């Protein structure tokens, strides 16, 4: 089988694996959001929940990794099928987007876990 086809199959597989795991993450995130938004959001309220919490840091850290893989593969498919970019260019952009999401996302998790700690 051509290496390009093997890579496509792997990307398909990883998008499905991440999707399966993320169904649970999305459910927790939705329940938390509906609960947290009551009475408006405040930084104090968010940070009281997340600061120093290893559990939330692990949960959202893993969520960021999963979504970075999932979203970047999806974007790559859109770039090939809708924007008609060549596979190579689409994969490059897809990988760069994955990296950007990963860095920004983990930075955000770090910020709400360890940022502005007294």
């Amino acid at each position, binding site marked *: 089988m051509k290496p390009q086809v093997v890579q496509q199959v792997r990307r398909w597989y990883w998008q499905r694996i991440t999707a399966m795991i993320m169904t649970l993450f999305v459910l927790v995130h939705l329940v938390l959001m509906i609960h947290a938004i009551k009475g408006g959001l405040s930084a104090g309220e968010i940070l009281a929940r997340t600061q120093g919490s290893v559990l939330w840091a692990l949960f959202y850290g893993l969520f960021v990794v999963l979504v970075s893989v999932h979203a970047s593969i999806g974007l790559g498919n859109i770039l090939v099928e809708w924007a008609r970019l060549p596979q190579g260019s689409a994969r490059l952009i897809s990988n760069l987007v994955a990296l950007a999401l990963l860095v920004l996302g983990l930075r*955000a998790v770090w910020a709400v876990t360890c940022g502005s700690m007294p």
Partner: protein
Amino acid sequence: MKINDARSRHHAIWWTFVVHRVSGLLLTVFLPIHFWTLGLALQGESALDRALAWYEAPVFRWGEWLLVLLLTVHALGGIRLLLIEFRPWRGLRRGWIVAGGIIALATSLLFLNASWK
């Protein structure tokens, strides 16, 4: 190379595919904004609070409602795809499209109601 046949596009399943893809794309565009906002906590609680105060404006509240709708639609549409691909074949699971739409709308309205309390 012809990837898609135009005849298949006048079809509910085609539109479900478009909704899944566009919702995924919009959520991907939103993520950096979401991450950047939370990253403001590095500058202190007040920096994050200033951004959150901005999001109190009605336009952002409707935007947040739309994001919850997109997230729920995308997640439920994704579960339908996983069922089609990994479970025994039972057609295109049209029931999931209707149920997914109703549950997504209900969830987003629950969020909107909670955000205005």
